[in-house]
């Protein structure tokens, strides 16, 4: 399992906000991708409404996931591939270790994958004495730094060129360098040796296609193609929801994925892998294994209020427009999945109470839904999570977060339904507020139990005379 630190959301967010380098990197990222993606959607031949069609396509696949996955598995097996269904991360990791053992694997190259991060694959392989190299440049950088990704598509945006230069100097025994092209080519050279020496390649899967029996991997660097071509074994991991039924559906989703992820019409490399090499082919892996992962997804599937989140194709477009992500960065979320999608999916995967701050921290502004490649109603699900946190929910095992808050609202609801009590309360509050510390005509601090409200903002005082009294006086 990947380490979960979602409990530290507030503390981590505070740190991030005070980090000027991160703030600049986040602002640049959003300026580039946020706007670019919106422009890309506008220029689609079908227009931005293609996202709505894509949503329907995704829901159709999700609501028939049993049939779609069985079709995918049958077709992969027809081509000579192996398919394993893993109910949790332990099962997935155990299977991969077994494959590694069978093939006497000593070195693994990992093409960027969120799922392998989710199941803690690298740690498990290393624990078995196997060398693992991340091969996406950003992932390689954070592997050297011993950190976790801070963005789904740009894992190392929190690192400066100087940080990278120092890391490479320390780990690769070379003189310090801080020119991005030169640094990239240093990594190219180091990783080329890893690709050529590896006996197993691991990867994720962007969108599989059930009717043809292929997984697809998408990258700009070519690292996933390397990982899936050069080593003798390829193990691909996919979340059970990452599948399209037909090529027609795949067409829509692949085009939206490239646009959502990096404002591109097409990524540099897209590979459709449907099995191992055939006897008469000169290269490609001799064995192909596809691991389909549940790990809490079937629980999401069983709840009609949250089922929609399984439409997500992890393009990260929502991160690139979210005003909260823009300030707190990816590490604050304390899990693989960050940003608005992380604020919904992380609580559902790791525990709603445990990751409660993630959904409480979002603004509900709706930018994420507008940017979403498949038009997922993230704000709606954030609200549902908040409701569960306020009222508790036995199905999800949610304990109400703050009983005081609930009591205050109950009291308020009683007050406003009783005219005379309401008038009296207003008058008392108008008098009482004079005792509170003020600045520039604003209340700076409220007394407990409502002091949380003024922790990060000032409050406008009540008018000396209520509107209705002034109205009546006229």
């Amino acid at each position, binding site marked *: 399992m990947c380490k979960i630190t979602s409990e530290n959301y507030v503390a981590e967010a505070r740190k991030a906000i005070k980090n000027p380098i991160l703030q600049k990197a986040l602002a640049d*990222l959003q300026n580039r991708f946020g706007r670019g993606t919106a422009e890309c959607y506008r220029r689609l031949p079908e227009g931005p409404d293609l996202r709505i069609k894509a949503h329907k396509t995704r829901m159709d696949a999700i609501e028939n996931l049993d049939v779609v996955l069985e079709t995918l598995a049958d077709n992969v097996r027809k081509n000579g591939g192996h398919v394993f269904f893993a109910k949790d991360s332990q099962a997935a990791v155990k299977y991969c270790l077994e494959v590694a053992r069978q093939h006497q694997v000593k070195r693994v190259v990992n093409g960027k994958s969120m799922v392998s991060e989710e199941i803690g694959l690298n740690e498990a392989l290393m624990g078995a004495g196997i060398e693992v190299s991340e091969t996406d440049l950003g992932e390689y950088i954070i592997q050297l730094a011993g950190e976790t990704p801070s963005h789904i598509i740009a894992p190392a945006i929190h690192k400066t060129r100087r940080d990278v230069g120092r890391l490479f100097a320390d780990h690769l025994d070379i003189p310090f360098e801080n020119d991005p092209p030169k640094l990239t080519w240093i990594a190219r050279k180091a990783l080329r040796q890893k690709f050529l020496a590896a006996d197993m390649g691991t990867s994720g899967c962007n969108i599989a296609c059930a009717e043809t029996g292929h997984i697809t991997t998408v990258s700009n660097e070519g690292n996933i193609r390397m990982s899936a071509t050069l080593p003798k074994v390829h193990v691909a991991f996919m979340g059970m929801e990452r599948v399209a039924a037909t090529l027609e559906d795949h067409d829509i989703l692949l085009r939206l994925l490239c646009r959502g992820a990096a404002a591109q019409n097409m990524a540099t490399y897209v590979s459709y892998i449907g099995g191992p090499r055939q006897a008469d082919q000169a290269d490609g892996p001799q064995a192909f294994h596809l691991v389909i992962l549940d790990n809490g997804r079937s629980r999401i599937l069983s709840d009609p209020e949250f089922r929609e989140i399984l439409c997500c194709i992890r393009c990260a477009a929502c991160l690139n427009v979210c005003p909260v992500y823009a300030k707190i960065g990816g590490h604050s979320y304390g899990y693989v999945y960050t940003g608005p999608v992380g604020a919904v999916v992380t609580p559902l995967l790791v525990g709603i109470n445990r990751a409660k701050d993630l959904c409480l921290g979002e603004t509900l502004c709706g930018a994420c839904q507008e940017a979403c490649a498949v038009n997922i109603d993230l704000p709606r699900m954030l609200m549902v999570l908040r409701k569960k946190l306020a009222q508790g929910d036995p199905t999800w095992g949610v304990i109400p977060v703050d009983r005081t808050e609930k009591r205050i609202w109950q009291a308020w609801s009683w007050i406003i339904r009783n005219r005379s009590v309401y008038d009296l309360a207003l008058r008392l509050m108008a008098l009482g507020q004079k005792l509170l510390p003020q600045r520039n005509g604003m209340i700076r601090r409220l007394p407990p139990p409502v002091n949380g409200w003024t922790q990060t903002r000032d409050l406008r005082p009540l008018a000396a005379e209520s509107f209705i009294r002034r109205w009546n006086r006229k």
Partner: protein
Amino acid sequence: MKNSGQEEFIKTIKTALGTSRAASGRKADLFAGDISAESRAILERIQNRSAADHKKLLDTLIEAAGPINLEVIACDDTGAVTTAIAALVREKDPEWGEQKGVVAWAHPLIERLNLPAALAEQNVPVFVTGLKKSTDEDIRQRIVDAFIGVTSADFCMADTATLVMRTRPGHARSVSLVPAIHIAVIKLDQMIADLKELYALLKWDPHERQEGLTNCLTFISGPSKTADIEATMVHGAHGPREVHLFVIITHD
């Protein structure tokens, strides 16, 4: 099937979905067996394309290739392509070693270029990846040692400047991946408009669907790139640093 965990896994999904409709009925709905009117229209459009239409697609390709740094060179015949490739071989330096070597697919169009003869005067060996006497290990080593890989492609999608390659004997996948420079050669009539057309062909065209996607279908749109260090765009992350695409306009 045994121990694949499938049965229990699918059962869990069925319970979670709580649907009452039988799987067979839902399967029939999802995977319609008949070609749609839209796909039929796409196939007709592809079949009826004139040389002028293909030239228009070439213009679209050139426009799309610019921003992704893909070099597109239109040539009148294979002779012109051979001359241009010889010039590239002369001009470019090897990235990983001293020796210049070229690997090429065993493909009718590439064989017509006669590269071994054309590069002999520069003393640059050309290794063809379909020779019966070479082992897979030998082919791999030749590809690793080469600085230029020459391939053709099945199709080229104009809209996104994307080369589409199926995997076959003689068409080693790493030729377009491992050498520092990738040269692709196609004929003008291999141009198609976009992904929709490609999928319609692979799924519904009586000839193309026999082979289908094969066990590895690859799209390549320009050279390898990354922006992982301070969002600075750099070409040549892991795959080729340069991609040159020659489009032969007339048949010879």
